[in-house]
């Protein structure tokens, strides 16, 4: 039987962790873009747009991420569309991330006092001008800490994509365990690597919160 050194285990896990990082980054950026669009729809004046955005958010927040991954991967397969695991994982995580970011950011937009909308309206600004020049610059400041905080959920959420066969950190952990029969060591390392990814994010979220609160002198 082949002997595996600790370095063999760790090396393989670290190589797979690249995919966890890549998937996290792609989902977060994609989710940010889609989330931004959903945010505009969610705060729009047109009622049907608001309803549509609300329905989207409720659907994706009200179902487990795992089911969304299954539907993206197997569901489309039923229609004869062959979806590779990486694509299904990326799409499902992006849509899931977007639903949460849109709702986090909506809270930030609504935290801006009504007087800011009224003052900019009275200066003849339109909705997009108000958002671009008055509301979002202020909302952004309060949005940074919860947004960075949520990125931790995205990193951990990528572990679910192992179920549909995407080889990232968790899947690699399973594969390596099957080869080495050392589950405690392997999953211990897996957990440590996740922690190394997530902890700096949570910590920076806390630091940003403190820093931006000081800068946000008006409240």
């Amino acid at each position, binding site marked *: 039987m082949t002997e595996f050194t600790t370095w063999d285990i760790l090396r393989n896990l670290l190589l797979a962790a690249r995919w966890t990082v890549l998937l996290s980054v792609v989902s977060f950026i994609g989710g940010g873009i889609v989330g931004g669009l959903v945010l505009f729809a969610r705060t729009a004046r047109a009622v049907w747009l608001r309803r549509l955005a609300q329905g989207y958010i409720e659907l994706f927040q009200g179902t487990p991420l795992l089911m969304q991954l299954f539907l993206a991967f197997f569901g489309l397969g039923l229609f004869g569309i062959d979806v590779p695991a990486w694509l299904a994982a990326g799409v499902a995580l992006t849509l899931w991330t977007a639903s949460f970011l849109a709702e986090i950011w909506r809270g930030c937009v609504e935290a801006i006092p009504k007087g*800011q909308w009224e*003052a900019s*309206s009275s200066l*003849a600004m*339109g909705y997009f001008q108000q958002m671009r*020049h008055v509301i979002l610059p*202020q909302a952004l*400041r309060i949005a940074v800490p919860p947004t960075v905080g949520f990125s931790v959920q995205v990193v951990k959420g990528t572990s679910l994509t192992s179920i549909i066969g995407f080889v990232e950190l968790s899947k690699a952990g399973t594969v390596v365990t099957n080869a080495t029969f050392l589950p405690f060591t392997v999953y211990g390392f897996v957990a440590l690597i996740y922690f190394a990814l997530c902890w700096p994010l949570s910590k920076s979220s806390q630091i940003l919160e403190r820093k931006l609160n000081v800068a946000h002198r008006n409240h």
Partner: protein
Amino acid sequence: MSLIAITEVRKSFGSNEVLKGINLDVDPGEVIAIIGKSGSGKSTLLRCVNGLETIDDGSILVAGAQLLPDDLHLKALRLKVGMIFQGFNLFPHLTAGRNVMLSQMVVKKTAKAPAEEMARKMLDRVGLGHKFDAFPDQLSGGQQQRVAIARALAMQPIALLCDEITSALDPELVNEVLAVVRELAAEGMTLMMVTHEMRFARDVCSRVVFMHQGRVHEIGPPGEVFANPKTPELRQFLGAH
């Protein structure tokens, strides 16, 4: 022709009718003080003139153009009529100068240099030329309100609506804001102001409107309204002040 013509305006919030058929014509250069108890509808009336509230019935004409609730008409109206609020509502993330420049550049598409020139001129006019680079939270309430006035003036409106603009100020800061308004009035700016400053209304305004329970209860030159109130409601209101 009157600059602002308010005809039979009605407005309800739910089942509560706040404005019950308001008629008021404001001539160019007139300074109108709107007084009355809280809940009499005076602020709502002012907000209707700027399109911040939609009216249920009647009509409002500003310089001959009808106030309609779609974006295009509202924008045209708001280019003519500026508004100043009780809570200043300066943009806290921008300096005083930037506050005054923003809508010129965004709405009127004025280039940066002339917008800045205009902003400096308007801040000078309210006595705050030296505060161009100060952020709102570095200014006193009175200074913030004067920046808000400069911000509205920079759009070159033909009329200004003032909604209790001194009510949120400490007593010693009220006068610096009223002095600016007094100057505007002397220069011929058309003003509609909801105010609790009776002395100011008496000294500066051309007409005083007393609102009571959603109606214009009494109207006339300040000398008349303050010296000979015709209705018991106004007598009581003035007595309380």
